């Protein structure tokens, strides 16, 4: 299976992050790992895009930070979904469904 890393769309990464955080607050590494693990490494968010995306989303108010203590015993910045982020996730999910259905209709046409 080809890696989707390089072709991943901007908005898609954000939607994935939001979805990840829908299960509960976690820090950046956990987000990356969760995405990698859940997609069986099909999608490996690039750190260079992941963090700017996190900061951007925080600025937009979709997620917010809280500082906690990690399993390593050091201070970690945990990201948590805000109500605004949750709304955005719903919108993005709906849009993805439409997009996915449309693309499928073409690509899978027989």
């Amino acid at each position, binding site marked *: 299976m080809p890696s989707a890393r390089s072709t991943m769309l901007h908005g898609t990464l954000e939607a994935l992050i939001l979805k990840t955080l829908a299960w509960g607050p976690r*820090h*950046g*590494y*956990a987000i*990356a*790992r969760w995405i990698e693990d859940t997609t069986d490494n099909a999608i490996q968010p*690039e*750190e*260079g895009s992941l*963090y*700017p995306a*996190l*900061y*951007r989303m*925080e*600025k937009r108010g979709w997620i917010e*930070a*809280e*500082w906690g*203590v*990690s399993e*390593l015993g*050091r*201070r*970690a*910045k945990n990201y*948590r979904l805000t109500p605004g982020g949750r709304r955005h996730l719903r919108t993005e999910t709906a849009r993805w469904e439409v997009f996915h259905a449309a693309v499928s209709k073409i690509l899978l046409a027989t």
Partner: protein
Amino acid sequence: MPRFPRFFWLPSGGFHAHRPDGFIVPLINRFGRGLRSIWRPSIHDEVEQDLGFHVEMRVRDLVKAGMTPEMARAEAIRRFGNIEEVKAECRGIGMRREREMRIKQWWNDWRQDLRHTRRQLLGRPGFAAAIVVTIGIGVGASTTIFSAVDSVLLRPLPFAEQDRVVSLWQTGDQDGSDHSPVSPANYLDWRDRNQSFSALAEAEPWSMDLTGQGDPEVLPTWAVTRHFFKALGVDPILGRTFVPEEFEEGNDRVVVLSHKYWQRRFGGNPRLVGSTLMMDDEAFLVAGVMPPDFEFPPGRPVWRPRIIGEHDNEMRGRNWLRVVGRLSPQVSLDEAQADMDRVASLLADEYPATNRNTGVLLEPITETIVGRARAPLYVLFAAAGLLLLIACTNVAGLLLARGSKRERELALRAALGAGRERLMRQLITEGVVLGVLGGIVGVGLALAGTGFLGALGASELPRVEHLQLDARVLSFAAILSVLTVLLFGLGPAIHFSRPDLRSYLNESGRGSTEGSTSQRIRGILVAGQIALTLVLLAGAGLLSRSFLSLTQVEPGFEPHGRVAVSLHVWDKNPTQEERIDFFGSLRSQVRGLPGVQSAAASSVVPFGRSSIETDGAYQIVGRPPASPGDEPLAYFTEATPMYFETMGIPVREGRSFSEADNRAEAFPVLVVSESLAAREWPETSPLGAQIDISEPGDEPMLGEIVGVVGDVRPTGFDSAPRAEIFIPHGMFGSGSMTFVARTEADPATLVEQIKQEVWKLHPTQAVYSGDRVELLMSESLQSRRFVLYLISVFAVLSVVLSAVGVYALVSFSTQQRTGEIGVRKALGADTRRILGMVMRNSLLLAGLGIAAGLAAAIGLGRFLDSMLYGVEAADPLTLAAVVLLVGVFSAIATLVPASRAARIDPAVALRAE
């Protein structure tokens, strides 16, 4: 994590869960903001830690998967691409986020403050209205007067480099004035001998008859010499001023108009420039129109060229010209003054007969134009300032009283964590909102005030036509109103933003006695307010008394039912006989009008508008001649028969002029004023004495005194009676006369009827002015009335404001003592005793205020000196009346709340406790 303990106390997300209404909201928010701002590391550390943590975790997992730690770290970092770039990008976004958050936070806080303020103010509308109206009055009054000060005194004149332009006056006249006009010969010598002026010019008052434009009209004109406009440094807005050729005989029929006159008379028609107007029956070219705010010397809207006559250098004794000059570059006013002093002393040596005592006074042009208005405006500005201060103390008092009531609320908020800065901010927001509302009311009042001022002061204040509420004045009002509240609201704000938690939360919180600081502030406010009011009242009182004593001055004639119509008939009646006939015919025609009891004419009438006055030397026949330059002076007035009778001027001795005296060939007789008779003949009667009224050195011109008439106030109630010599009109037959008539009918109608009679004689004869004499007298009081009106309005407002203020402060303090009074009553104190107790303190403060105000009033009185007439600045009667008034109103303002306090039912008071 000892540095960030709070984080662990609070359930995450709890602070957004619900938003209770009321003032709790800002408190909660305060916590919320605290969480974010206190334990969030700086954005730099945040990114370092955030990404660093990611790297650590990745390394751990990679090591677990079998890599060496070094390889794992390299791989973890490699995955970031350029990690420094990523960090920088994150920091950039983070910084923008912080900034947005700060703005949002500030905005939210502010909106909360505003919401809270609205609740506060609407909850106590009376309190809010009192403050807003108080600020409005103070700001409105100050802004109104400031707008006048600004437009009259502060705005630059329309002259280029106005500080180089000066007026030149002659000093050393016998009448003691040091602002006398200049004689033609002196002007020529000044012009030729000075080393200080780049341009010097003279202006001669001149009248021209404008015809062919409706009713004939007398046009007061300045005939100006060549460098006049250059000296002033002013350019026309339309057309041009005079060119050198126009100062040659025959080419001088050209005029320049003032903007105001051009607008009023010709509707601002631009085509007028270049066309001609009929003046004195000749066609004058309209060369140009001057800029809107230029009318100098004041009072005459038209300029024409003045050709220096061949006799100008012989006329040194009579002085009637206005002189202006522009200082040469590098020459200071003092240097120019010294230069002119030198010229004056040369002239004194050369012409001792006329110039022995003559000096020169240089005066900055601004002083010439607005100098007269300065004292009244400053007095009014000071009065408005006092009113504003009273308003400020009122605001402070109200906020203080209000603050005390809110102390519990503020203490509660403080207990819930609102910091002092947050509480201050709330109080300041309330202050600013009140200030802005007050400012709006103030600007509204100032709008009305400037309209009133413009109407009232139009004839009294130079440049008042520019009066307007422009950006400058409005910003003055804005700054004033916000400053008022901030300065006087900040005290209470500082005081109450530091509430004493224990006393309010440990106890029930109600009815604790007033703190000593608050008590002291209250005392200062009461006393200060009373003192300020007293000063303002004293000023108003002194001006009122001046006004009263002025109006009680006997003018020396009877104004009622008299009219005065001024005419210059020279052109239509070139010979002496024609002029004598003209006024003779006019007299008999007007006497025939219904209701007219008598009619006469005189070259000068008291309080009259036409101010062509002639003074000169005289010599009593049979007495040793005075040394040259020391001849006694008198004013010469030509009068027809019946003049004294028509004006109601009493004949003290001898007789007045008869019809037989009024012929050119009649035996020359004279009538003198009481002042002159008393000066020259203190013991004996002047009747039968001969006076030589010729100029010194000229052919003698004798007349015999046949009568003495009562003195009159010549130019106003405050003008001193003067030595006057009346000459029968038939002797010289002046063409510049004021026609007077006495009627039983309506004088206003008579003015119109007289004009018609004039036009029957000469259809194109212009009439200079026509007024009821009573109106002329009333107008002479206009500037005093103007100041008096305004200061009285301020004084009344100040009494109202400070009565309300004292009342509020005393009520507040008695309310604070409700509990104490209840206890005292319960223990047997009777009403009167309580009353005494409450009032003693307040009256003591009032007494202090009165003493301080009295001292200030006496100290400040001398600034009023120039505006007082017939009363001392420290007039005991006025001061006593003012003290009484202030005493009474403070007693009432104290008594009402005190008696209410004294009637408190102890049971109620104690239950409330």
